[in-house]
């Protein structure tokens, strides 16, 4: 019996020693990982600071003003002026959505004539479809494709 207990104790001590050894090494590994991660965080923070500084530098008002001047032909940007303020009432009432003729019956739209804008005027009529007449040779499949492309909109 004593021998058995002795062996059992010895085995327990061995097992515990093995476990402690493993824990020790895992702790060291985690510590090293933490250090690496902390130094990575530090580097990333540093980079973030550089990027923030660069963003602020590139967005400094002097530079933006110069860029706006250089690209005036393309962008036409000017300092803000008082007359650029608008009021909500100055915006045209949005045209009602163009109804799909094939699916909506005329009786189904009685509410429209009652609608008025803030000025008390009837709402503007929806813009007439741009394709008034079918070009010679019959209506193509896709009407948009035949819309004239504005030439020279880009020739600054």
């Amino acid at each position, binding site marked *: 019996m004593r021998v058995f207990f002795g062996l059992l104790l010895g085995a327990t001590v061995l097992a515990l020693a093995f476990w402690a050894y493993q824990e020790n090494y895992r702790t060291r590994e985690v*510590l090293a990982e*933490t*250090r690496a991660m*902390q130094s990575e965080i530090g580097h990333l923070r*540093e980079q973030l*600071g*550089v990027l*923030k*500084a*660069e*963003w*602020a*530098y590139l*967005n*400094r*008002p*002097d530079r933006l*003003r110069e860029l706006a001047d250089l690209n005036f032909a393309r962008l036409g940007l000017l*300092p*803000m*002026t*008082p*007359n*650029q*303020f608008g009021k909500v009432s100055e915006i045209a009432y949005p045209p009602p959505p163009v109804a799909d003729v094939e699916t909506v019956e005329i009786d189904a739209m009685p509410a429209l004539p009652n609608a008025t804008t803030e000025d008390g005027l009837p709402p503007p009529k929806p813009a007439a479809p741009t394709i008034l007449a079918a070009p010679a040779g019959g209506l193509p499949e896709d009407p948009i494709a035949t819309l004239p492309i504005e030439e020279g909109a880009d020739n600054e």
Partner: protein
Amino acid sequence: MSEPRRPLRPLAPVLRARERGENPDLIERENRARRSDALRDRLRRQAEGRLLVLSVFFIAAFAAVGVRMGTLATSVPVEPTRLGGGSQITSARADIVDRNGRLMATNLVTQALYAHPQEMVDIPGAVAQLAAIFPDIDAAALEARLEDKNRKFVWIRKTLSPEEIQAVYDIGDPGLLFASRDMRIYPNGHLAAHVLGGASFGTEGVNAAEVIGVAGIEKAFDDRLRDPAELDKPLQLSIDVTVQSAVTEVLEGGMHLMHAKGASAVIMDVHSGEIISMVSLPDFDPNDRPQPLTTGDQSDSPLFNRAVQGVYELGSVFKILTVSAALDEGVVNVNTVVNTQSPMRWGRFKISDFHNYGPSLSVRNVIVKSSNVGTAHIAQMLGGPRQKAFLESLGLFEPTPVELFEAPSGRPLLPGKWGEIQSMTISYGHGMSTSPVHLASAYSSLVNGGTLVKPTLLKQSGWTLGPQVIKPETSATVRSLLRDVVVKGTATFGNVPGYDVGGKTGSADKPRPNGGYYRDKVLATFAGTFPAHDPKYVFVVSLDEGYEIVNGQAFRTAGWTAVPVTAEIIRRIAPLLGLPPEIEPASADGVREARRG
């Protein structure tokens, strides 16, 4: 042990035993046994002592382990961190942002260059190559320092760009070494230079260097910016970078057009006292802060903040202060007719107007036409003590509480004795010097309904309602007076359609250093508010020694110089401040007419 050693065979007992016919060997055996007993006792005592010492040692060792385990088990786990090589220099510094969170000052990591001369291979060659990289370096002096046998350590450059670092690496001298640094940068360059001030290095080491503020808000808030607990929280200013940039651009243009040698502008929120924009020209780049002047007038240095440090006799812009005190005390109302016969004589002094405005004017017209004589008479009616107390209540006797390191140096200059003549000259802005920020906060207090505001450079969370300095009705009257100056008085160039500007001009002859005044040097100031019917912002714009030539004649008064510049500033910044143009409410006109009649 001290007892004498007993012989094994003592002669006397042996002889006695022989006589008795006994064996003397017995005596010897007995003695031997006694001796060995003594020896045994001694060894046992020794062994017991050793065991005791050993057990104490073991108990102590196990107790130590046990206590350590106990403390580890009961203590809060902390993440182990690497100590920074024993260096105690902290280089961290919080950012500074504007009221909309745009970055105004931040830190960048960079490298400093130093040398260990004893490790250098080729000092003359390295110095020649360094001089090629840094053209501003004094090569001869550097070489002398490196060749000095007593030196083991030489700083060469405080900050390096990445390209310069590479170029120094390419020299390849083992004695040239790099030290890591945090460097303060101001991405907006000159913008708001006087507000920010600047930073430089304090204690320097190889691992880090302290970054300390040297002027402006950087120095005033040095402790806050370096506080480790608040490093992540940027310091938010009341300055708006966009507005600041527009004001600087317009003011710079105006300064050159008007041939002025300096200019300043302050835009302040009338309710909170927040300074939205503070410009002083000429300015400097805080990234490369110039050295202070060693000779001449410090106020000509670009480092000088005219808006805060500069105390000037601001001239007629002061008239509204004395007049509003007189209105508030009920001494006069806007229609009271005052004597404006020019020149006015008081003892050996003579007060005269820019033009002769006839024998008398109403108080309203005294302000609109800016009559010195009329204001002096109003000051006489009000009396010196009441005038003094009123100006003091506006905070004009103390340096401004603005959070700048330089603010305490902007102490107003007051007359030694507040007699009647001083009271009269101060009523039209001579004999007392204040800074533009003083004036801006005084105007804010007058037009915002009469509550005192304190100028501040930090973003406030809302309005601060200070003590009442004048009645709300008086404040409304003051607004209408200021508006009239722009509509039909000395500041007609200041009218900006839609923004209802109200203000007062001031053209003060500059005092000579040794007494008297220059005839041809004028500090032109335009101070006022917009929109006048419901003030949001107060402005104070000054041009130093500006003039405009029209038809071959030089005009120096503020109406010709500071006012048009201010109008352009308002035209530019009002949309940026989110103020839509509005038509002045007609009802306000009615109220004014009724009061007038």
